[in-house]
Every structure is written in structure tokens, then in C-alpha cells.
């Protein structure tokens, strides 16, 4: 994985910049902009990296997808939809892993992003969430801005022509207008929806989250993903919450995995297997989770893992 070291991309960047200057405009395809094709030749859809530090896991998971350069081009604005919805500490696994978030932000900047913004609409008081999760410090140290959607002025009303139950929603403007949207969920057990994953994470970009429960939660989760599909999904499964979700605190497990994917439905379809279905005692099947089925029904992605290019790698 050494070719994905930041050193390499910086060199590549300088070369690319020199080339861009030297070549006439019509040829000016910045080499950095080209997706980097790994040795295997074919790009994967879902990559599961295990074993290693958060930064190593992220590197390993991104490489078979084509590296961050495939998603983030120079000078773009990137929005990361993280999960810091609750005033909990990182050890309690109710909010994102700070080390992984720092690594993700760094990787996005290394790919040439102009500005990275981290967003979530918190459930607990936003000030307590930002401090207690440690993510405000993490994001700011990594050079990213971190915002919570506590004011209605940062939302924009959008209509959902493809939505089955939800026809209108207030959606964070920045996430609509950003060049790249990265979905950065944390798998947790969830009383209402069995599990919370990438699709559910997108709920935190809307204003009136509670009212979705009233309409039809599973369908609304799927409907929200029709507004804007994330360009990249990075599932933070280093430590997951297995009981008392989503707020916790509860029991945690340490799968020490990072799942990177281009297809949010497929990522969720894989990530459900991290949890055991209490009825059967076996890991959940994607079809047992209604919102994943609904999202597949809206053609948002592939639920059948045999139909996607799934790759498992070990980073250490």
C-alpha cells in the first residue's frame, strides 16, 4: 500500500501541476484527477479492510476503490456527513472514531480538496455533542470546519419526486451544493430500525428528523437518499454499539473494520452482518432490514452482495 502514502500523492501532485502548466489547455488533464487504477486492474464496489490502526484501515479500504483521487478533485468542496448526534465519549461508540475522522479529512485534503466541512444535525444539544464526542477538536485540528445543523437557515427545501412517502424535506444546503458528499456512518444497534447504517445516517442532513418517525421511518430513510446520493461511503466499524442504540451507552464490540464503498446500499448490506438478529441468533441478512430493502426498491443500490464486487483486505 506504500504507493498510497501521502508522499507519493504529493510528488504526483507536483508532477501533475508541472504537466498541467506545460501542456496546452486541451490536454490539461491533471494526472491527479485521473482515477488511480490499482494493480488488480478492476475497481471494487465495496471494500472491507480489517486489522490495523484507523489510518491504515482507511488507506487499505480506499486503495481498491481507486483511492481518494477518484472521488475528490483539486479545489473541490467536500462535505462529510459524520455522526456526532449524541453527547457521548468516543469510547462509548455512539459517535465517530476521532482518529478515523482525522485520517479521512487528511486523505481528502491530500487529494486536493479546497475545504472540508463536517456536518451533522445533532439530537442532544449541539454544544455538548461537539465537545463530548471530541470531534470538534479532531476536525479543527485536521483543518476542517465542523457544523451542526441547529439553525433552520442552513437548510433548503427540496422536493423528492422519487420519494414514496416523503415528498418534501429541508436538507442541509451545504450538502446539496458541495462537490463531493462523503457519508461517514457508524454502525449501531437501533431500537426502531434494528440497525443504523449509511442510509440511516443521511437522516442527519434533514431538519425535522422526528417527524419522519411519524410518517414511515423505513420508507423515509430510503426516500431521503434520493435527494443526493453520497459519492463515497466510509463506514466506521472500528468499534460498534450493539445494545441500547442509537444513543447508548450500551455494550460495544470491536470489529476493527473500515468499509469503503461507492454504493451505500451495498455498504449497508454488508455492514448489517456485524450485528446478530436476536430472533434467529445469526447475523442479520440485508433483506431483514426494511430500509435497506426499500432503498433497493428505489434503485439506490444493490442489496445482493453476490452482485457487487466485494473485496476484503487486511491492512497490517
Amino acid at each position, binding site marked *: 500500500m506504500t504507493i498510497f502514502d501521502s508522499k507519493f500523492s504529493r510528488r504526483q501532485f507536483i508532477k501533475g501541476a508541472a504537466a498541467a502548466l506545460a501542456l496546452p489547455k486541451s490536454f490539461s488533464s491533471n494526472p491527479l484527477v485521473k482515477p488511480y487504477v490499482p494493480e488488480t486492474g478492476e475497481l471494487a464496489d465495496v471494500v472491507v479492510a480489517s486489522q490495523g490502526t484507523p489510518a491504515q484501515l482507511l488507506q487499505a479500504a480506499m486503495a481498491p476503490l481507486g483511492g481518494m483521487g477518484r472521488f475528490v478533485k483539486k479545489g473541490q468542496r467536500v462535505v462529510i456527513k459524520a455522526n456526532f448526534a449524541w453527547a457521548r465519549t468516543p469510547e462509548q461508540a455512539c459517535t465517530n472514531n476521532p482518529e478515523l475522522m482525522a485520517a479521512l479529512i487528511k486523505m481528502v485534503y491530500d487529494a486536493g480538496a479546497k475545504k472540508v466541512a463536517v456536518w451533522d444535525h445533532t439530537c442532544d444539544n449541539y454544544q455538548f455533542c461537539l465537545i463530548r464526542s471530541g470531534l470538534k477538536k479532531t476536525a479543527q485540528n485536521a483543518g476542517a470546519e465542523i457544523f451542526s445543523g441547529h*439553525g433552520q437557515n442552513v437548510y433548503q427545501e427540496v422536493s423528492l419526486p422519487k420519494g414514496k412517502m416523503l415528498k418534501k424535506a429541508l436538507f442541509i444546503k451545504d450538502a446539496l451544493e458541495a462537490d463531493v458528499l462523503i457519508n461517514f456512518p457508524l454502525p449501531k444497534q437501533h431500537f426502531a430500525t434494528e440497525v443504523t447504517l449509511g442510509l440511516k445516517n443521511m437522516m442527519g442532513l434533514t431538519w425535522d428528523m422526528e417527524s419522519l418517525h411519524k410518517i414511515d421511518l423505513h420508507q423515509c430513510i430510503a426516500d431521503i437518499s434520493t435527494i443526493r446520493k453520497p459519492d463515497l461511503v466510509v463506514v466506521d466499524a472500528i468499534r460498534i454499539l450493539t445494545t441500547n442504540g442509537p444513543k447508548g451507552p450500551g455494550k460495544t464490540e470491536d470489529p476493527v473494520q473500515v468499509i469503503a464503498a461507492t454504493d451505500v446500499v451495498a455498504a449497508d448490506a454488508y455492514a448489517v452482518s456485524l450485528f446478530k438478529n436476536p430472533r434467529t441468533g445469526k447475523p442479520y441478512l440485508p433483506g431483514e432490514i426494511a430500509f435497506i430493502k426499500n432503498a433497493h426498491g428505489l434503485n439506490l443500490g444493490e442489496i445482493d452482495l453476490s452482485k457487487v464486487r466485494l473485496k476484503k483486505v487486511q491492512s497490517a
Partner: protein
Amino acid sequence: MTKRIPGLRPLVQGLFFFGFLYLLFRAAFPLEMRFPVDLCLRLDPFIGLTTLLTRKDIFFRMLPGFGVLAMVALFGNFFCAWFCPMGTAVDFFDRVLFREKKRSEPFDDQSLRRLRYGLFLFSLAGGAAAWQLLSLIDPISLISRTFITFVFPGATWAYNHLLVEAVGLLSKNPATLSTVPLPVFKAGVVIVIFFGAVLSLSVIRKRFWCRYLCPLGTLFSLVSRLRLVRRAVGEECTGCQRCVRDCPVGAIPQDDPLTYRRSSCINCFQCLDCPPKAVSFHFSRRGARPAPAVSMSRRYALGALGMGLFGALAVKLSPLRGKAKLKNDGLIRPPGALPEDRFVSVCTGCGECLKVCPNNALHPAFLEAGLDGIYTPKLVPRIGYCEELCNFCGRVCPTQAIRSLELEEKRLVQMGVAHIDKTRCIAHDTDKTCLVCNEQCSYHAVLLDEKKRPRVDEDKCTGCGICENKCPVDGESAIVVHSTGGQKRLTPQPESPALG
């Protein structure tokens, strides 16, 4: 001292006023100030005195106030003219709104001057009978309350609107700066009307409030009879009456400007602007002979005390008590509040807890807590809930009517209990899965049955009201917190350490 530095007093007043505002402003998340944000209230010896009477124990929070009192006894009353935020506000509006009109015409104010002492004794007797009349008329509490319930929400509203306008001008940039949650306080209107009335009294006389009503000023007057910094008038006095006109508290009698009312003087040093330079202030046991003090008959003093006691009794037994003291009185008190009777008598209604509450959960009661519970804080969960990992209200309470608790302790205080209205609840009434109350509950007190319908575990519920607040049912929530007639301590749940 014989010379006055022009502009010095307004400067000091302005600085201290902004200090006062800054402390109020900082009574907010994350509450990490070096010195206490309720400092202004702790410096108020009248609050100290009445708290002494109502709480019947001294505690160190109120010591600064008694320090101020000792200083006043030594140097005379310097507080009102130089430091009091209420005095500054009164001075400011005097200058802006009611510039010299008929106000200097002489009138016999003996009865009004007496009223001030009568009111002081009245509120003291009321305080001894656990009726906190002070909460209405203590100047520091009054101005804090007004700014917290009216001025800060107004400023927040203005900020939010200006922000949206400003962002609108930058068409290309995505709006990333959120507006600030707007605090609302229903009783704020009543509070600001009272404040406005106090200010407009100045139309009759300069600093009308300060010279005839303010109980804190009265307390200072009582002790500043002993003062060592005294005013003297020399032979040069031509009787031009300038000092009589200029004195903001009418401490210099018109018929005898060589004297002054020692207890009324607030050391503003305005009278040093004397054309023949006859006036001076000295450290001395002598000085000008004091003008005749306020004549308080024994009948008047005893009457005031008796009225205070009777008033307290009447208020305590008043049918206007609302639902207070009933089993469900609708009054959910902040976590760590003293038992209801003591709470209403100790709380000064200063509003610090309303300001510091991050979720706008605390609101000043109006009449629902009875006449004696006016402006005491109560939790209104549908507007805001009590944040799990927050103990700010107790930490800023100057009189500790809300006790300052550690987070572990605070998490175990049961303020009330939530109940589910099954006819309104989405999960009970329809077959949809809702469970907002369950996922929001910080204490795992909302449990599920096999059909994913919520029910409340009363041994875990603290009555924080997050469930009532977030319940998606329109209008009244389907899960409502009821008070249980007193707070109690829950047994800790070992299996889920939230503070881990």
C-alpha cells in the same frame, strides 16, 4: 477631596455595566469562567441578608455581599452611584428621556423617604416569614431578570435575522453559519413592563427608584450613617443652591445646603462642582452636621414589620396559589431544587438559571406557583428539555435554591415522571414504529414491549422531558412529564455508566 473629575463616574458606571452584561452573557455553555458568573448577585448584601433569613444558614457564596456592606459602612454608599447596574440604567434613562423639566421643583418628600424604610422592613419581615418579596424589588435581581428574559432574547432574534440577511448577500457561498436557538420566556413581558415602570418613575424625580424604593439602597443608607468619608461645606458657601439641584438623590436639603442627609448621600461627588469651591469630602469623624434623619415613628416601623408578616401569611394562604402543593402541580423544578416551600422562599428570581440553560428548558413561573413563587424557574419540556450531562443551573444559582450537584448526582435526581398517552402515541394508536422517545431517552427509562410500543420505567425516569420535547405528535406530546410533588433520588443503575 475637593475636585471632581468630569466624566469619570459615567466611565466607571459604563465599564461596570458592561462587566455585568458580560457576566450575564457568559452564563452559558461551556461555563468555564475563572470567577463566578453570578458575581453581581453575590455582591448584593440585600440578597445575602434575605437569604440568611429565608435559608436560615450562612454560606460562603454570600460573603462578598457582606464585604460590600462593610465597605459601605466605612466609606459611605459608593455602590449606587458608581457600580450598581440598576443605578446606571436609571441614570442613563434619566439623561436620555427625562432631561430636567419640572423635576427640581421643591416638594416635601418626607413621606416618600419614609416609605423606603417601611418597604425595607416590610420585605425583611416577609423574608423572615419565608416570603421572598425581594425577588420583585432587589435591584440586581430585577435588572438581571429583565436582561435575561427580554434583552438577550431580543438580541438573539436580531442576530439571527441579520445573519440570514448577511448570508443572503453572499449569493455564491453556501450558508454554513447556523442561527442560534432563540430563547423564549413567556413571563418576559410582565418583567419588562415592571422594569419600564421603574425607569419611568424618574419622570417625577431624578433616580426616583433609588431614593424612595430600592431596598438595597435602604440597607446601604442604614449602615452608611457610620461612614467615615464625610462631606463638609465651608464658609465660602453663597447659598446658590446648585448642589441642591444637582444632587441625584436629593440628599441636600433646600433650606439648609450646609448640611446633608448622611445616609442618603451616594458619594457621586456631583456637589464638588461648587462655584465658590466650598464643598469638600474628608476622612473624618466630624464634617458637616447631618440633616435631620428620616423620622420613623415606632408605629410606622412596627406597622411595616407587621404588614410584612401579615402579607407573607396572606400570600402563603392565598387562593391564588394556583396548583402549587397539589400532588401534580405542573411545576417541574430544576434538578437539585430545594423542596418546594423552601425553594420559593430562597429563589430570588434573578434568572441566571434561565440564561444558562442550554436548551431554554427553564422558564419563569408567573402565577402558577402562587404569588410567592413568582419568577421561580420551572421546566417546560415541550419547549426545552433538561440536558443529561449538564448541571449549569445549580452552578450559577447565587442563593443555591437549586443546589450545585455533581453530574453523577444530577443524573439521579427525579424531577418528575413521564407518562404515555396511549390514545395519542403513534406506536400505540397505529401499527407504525416510532420510538423517538425510546431512542432519545438518556436513562433507558422508555422500554419497549414485543410490538415495539413504548412504556416508561418509573424507577429510571428522571423527568428530564427529552421524550416530551422530541415526540413527533403534533400539538401536545403523547408522552408528558408530570411532577410528583417533590424531587427524589433514584438508585443508580450500575450496568450503564453514562459518564464512562
